[in-house]
């Protein structure tokens, strides 16, 4: 059997360091023909570098990698939106992708009209839409508002309608990009169910997600991208392990944008997640630039969710232990370790406070870094934890 998708040595380059806007103002070209000649050659950024893999019919493949690894670019090339700079892809089936959920929706049109508009943009024939119309409406649950303009819909309703249309596409290859990040828990469950159904019906799925449990549920194989390169491909368990390890091993860093001031301040913070749930730890390396005199101080760390809900605070040493005299080359480095509670998967923010007492703050950098928790806090649970139930999954046991 021939693979349904053959990705062969794909490369995609972007020019960076040119104009700020991707489009050019004619004025610049007319006014500065010479400047263009003098300008140093633009830097080439390689978003994808020699990526090759095959997908067999009926396989569901996960594409994982950190932000900026080139996943979205790969999907864009696969769906034909942008051409590769080098290499080629042989497709033996129609590709449709769910990264365009709701594309072509127009707020002035009614729900019914939008289903037709969206469906046809996604590549469905009118006859096909007619055939699936009832099923689409049923799935979306907006039948009462079919003839209401879309602008009166809540964003949740819009999303449900959009997903319903996309879910009824019948392509041989379905590309799904992190659509589950939105919608309420109920709808997410419905979507996952639908995708499961699609994959069981023998269609080929490419799934891009940061949600490792969902990836494990849905896919049998995976590829792992790092900085545009294909790092690893193989069974899903190995890929997920690799991704988790990679995320944790990577050092996250924040450097103060300006340290030219005359006052002492936090100039660099690095973090690293170590260990495995429920006993994972966050290592924080804080560097303080010593400029002027300051009283003996201590540090406090703030951890919050991405939507700015404060979750917890940690004070590694509750006494003023940082003294100006300890500075080496004008810097003091403090390495701290935080025992994290069992937390649900997701990205969290970190802030660092530096001061001598409750009433004296020297520097306070809020939400400067993020770290990701990729493992499930509960062994054996692969279904995602809903955020509305809180962020910490407390360890518990049955006593009697």
């Amino acid at each position: 059997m021939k693979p349904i998708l053959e990705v062969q040595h794909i490369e995609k380059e972007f020019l960076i360091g040119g104009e700020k806007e991707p489009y050019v103002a004619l004025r610049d070209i007319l006014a500065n023909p010479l400047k263009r000649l003098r300008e140093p050659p633009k830097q080439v950024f390689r978003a994808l570098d020699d990526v090759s893999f095959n997908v067999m019919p009926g396989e569901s493949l996960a594409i994982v990698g950190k932000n900026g690894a080139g996943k979205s670019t790969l999907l864009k090339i696969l769906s034909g939106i942008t051409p590769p700079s080098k290499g080629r892809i042989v497709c033996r089936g129609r590709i449709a992708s769910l990264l365009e959920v709701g594309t072509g929706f127009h707020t002035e049109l009614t729900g019914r009209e939008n289903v037709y508009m969206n469906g046809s943009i996604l590549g469905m024939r009118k006859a096909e839409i007619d055939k699936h119309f009832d099923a689409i409406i049923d799935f979306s649950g907006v039948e009462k508002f079919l003839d209401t303009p879309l602008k009166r819909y809540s964003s949740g309703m819009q999303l449900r309608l959009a997903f319903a249309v996309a879910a009824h596409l019948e392509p041989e290859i379905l590309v799904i990009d992190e659509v589950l990040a939105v919608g309420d828990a109920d709808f997410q469950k419905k979507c996952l169910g639908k995708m499961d159904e699609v994959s069981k019906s023998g269609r080929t799925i490419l799934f891009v997600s940061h949600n490792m449990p969902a990836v494990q549920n849905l896919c049998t194989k995976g590829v792992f991208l790092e900085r545009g390169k294909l790092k690893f491909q193989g069974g899903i368990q190995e890929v997920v392990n690799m991704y988790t390890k990679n995320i944790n091993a990577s050092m996250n860093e924040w450097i103060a944008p300006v340290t030219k001031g005359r006052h002492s301040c936090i100039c660099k913070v690095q973090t690293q997640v170590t260990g495995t749930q429920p006993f994972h730890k966050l290592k924080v390396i804080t560097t303080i630039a010593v400029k002027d005199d300051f009283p003996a101080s201590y540090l406090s760390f703030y951890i919050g969710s991405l939507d700015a809900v404060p979750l917890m605070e940690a004070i590694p040493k509750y006494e003023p232990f940082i003294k100006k005299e300890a500075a080496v080359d004008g810097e003091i480095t403090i390495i701290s370790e935080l025992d994290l509670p069992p937390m649900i998967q997701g990205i969290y923010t970190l802030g660092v406070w530096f001061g001598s007492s409750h009433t004296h703050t020297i520097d306070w950098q809020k939400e400067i870094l993020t770290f990701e928790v990729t493992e499930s806090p509960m062994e054996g649970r692969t279904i995602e934890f809903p955020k509305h139930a809180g962020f910490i999954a407390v360890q518990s046991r049955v006593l009697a």
Partner: protein
Amino acid sequence: MEYIIERQYKFSLGIKELIRYRELFYFFTWRDIKVKYKQAALGFMWAILQPLAMMMIFTLIFSRGLKVSSEGIPYPVFALSGLIIWNVFSSGLLNSANSMVSNANIIKKIYFPRLIIPMSSILTALFDFCFALLIYIGVLIYYNHQTDWLRVLYCLPLSLILTVTTTLGLGTMLSALNVKYRDFQYVIPFMIQFLLFVNPVLYSSKIFENSWMEWIMKLNPVASAINLSRSAFTGNPIDWLSVGLSFGVSLLLLFIGVYTFRKTEAYFADLA
């Protein structure tokens, strides 16, 4: 079905693909028309009111005030014969030139033959033409104008084909340029205003007889289309030489436009 995604070096029109996606022409046009008139209280009435109001103001200024010659037919009939063609050109050009930028969100996310977008925005302009034509028939009846309908039957479609070819050529070219250079967003409305005075919409092209402008009029496809549509109602002889020449010009424009468009099309998603 097997196909290959790779960088395109060869130029092709992609007609096969356009046919495969033919339903999208209908949907894009339908959407634009629907959205255009949906929020207006008078709805489709605007398609009628606009040319009617234009005709009235032009009659007032050019016929009553400036006493412009109208080749022996009532001025409203004269002006409208030019306006219906001019409106197809001006709104078609304006719509199609902006179409790629205004549909950027779709272009960035889904693949389909991009040519559908500027093409269907010209189809939208043709929809307005149908309403304007109704008005025109009304005006003809009102002035009890003797019309050679047989002649109208071949002059008007021919004139329309000439206009649409020209609009498509310029529209695709400008829409591609507009993605790259946003300056065209400001240039185009100005250009259309300018062209209104260069084309014989409001006056007779006879005023340029025996001057160098006459040749510009002969080569200019829009002017030629207007003269063609007008001669159906005035009974003046048709200048077939001008029709032939300007057809050549419009086909050249179409080729340049579509070529530019197809050449830059692949990078619209990166630029838009």
